[in-house]
């Protein structure tokens, strides 16, 4: 059994289009809400300033792992790394993988994030504290919107 998050998403767009949205650092930044400074290169760190409202004071960092064209894009990072004073570098990062498959109507995107069992307990507590009513409510709105669409 694995300790991971998995999301499957049907996209009405060709694989090549989805691949570009994932791996072009400017396109990635537009939906991930981060101002990434340079192109993605496997084995290298990608970073930039978060552009999500309310979190603009934070830096985003990830290490690009694999870029197998139109098949697999992956990186490691520290999820919920929201405390600018905390050094997350000694913690084991989680692995995020985007897998693409061509379908009759476009592309099947399978996202997995794994490695949560290795996060220290104190960080899980942090993740709980950062939550507030407004954030939760906003999530629900978006979920309703997506479900209705």
């Amino acid at each position, binding site marked *: 059994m694995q300790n991971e998050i998995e999301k499957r998403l049907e996209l009405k767009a060709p694989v090549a289009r*989805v691949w570009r949205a994932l791996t072009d650092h400017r396109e990635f930044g537009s939906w991930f809400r981060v101002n990434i400074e340079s192109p993605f290169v496997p084995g290298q760190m990608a970073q930039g300033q978060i552009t999500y409202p309310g979190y603009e004071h934070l830096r985003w960092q990830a290490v690009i792992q694999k870029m197998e064209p139109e098949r697999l894009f992956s990186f490691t990072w520290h999820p919920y790394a929201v405390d600018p004073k905390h050094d997350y570098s000694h913690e084991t990062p989680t692995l995020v993988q985007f897998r693409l498959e061509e379908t009759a109507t476009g592309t099947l995107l399978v996202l997995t994030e794994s490695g949560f069992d290795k996060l220290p307990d104190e960080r899980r507590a942090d993740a709980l504290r950062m939550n507030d009513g407004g954030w939760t409510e906003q999530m629900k709105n978006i979920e309703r919107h997506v479900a209705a669409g």
Partner: protein
Amino acid sequence: MSRLASEAAAAKRRQHAVVCAALGDETRLSLVAALAAGEPRSIVELSGGAKITRQAITKHLRVLEQAGIVHCLRAGRHSLFRFDPAPMHELEDYLRRVSEQWDEVLARLKSLVEG
């Protein structure tokens, strides 16, 4: 299956994964199942019917105690063990939040590529 139903199923799978990752052992899993069913139990009660020794049960209970999943209560000369679901709930909550954040991020990716 509707989106909500599949989300619920996925959440359940994640929950099982978390429980198993936290326990990682069949004996401990059965101890937790026994304790989660209700009243605090003694080692003697917990080892009833089990093929392993009380010493082994005690060792497993200590591992669960360290993880905060069970607590030891003194009752006279005996020790009773009580189940505490909080560590498992906390991990589940955390994963649910990360999962919700992905829903939001992926919805923006979807609008971009389908737009």
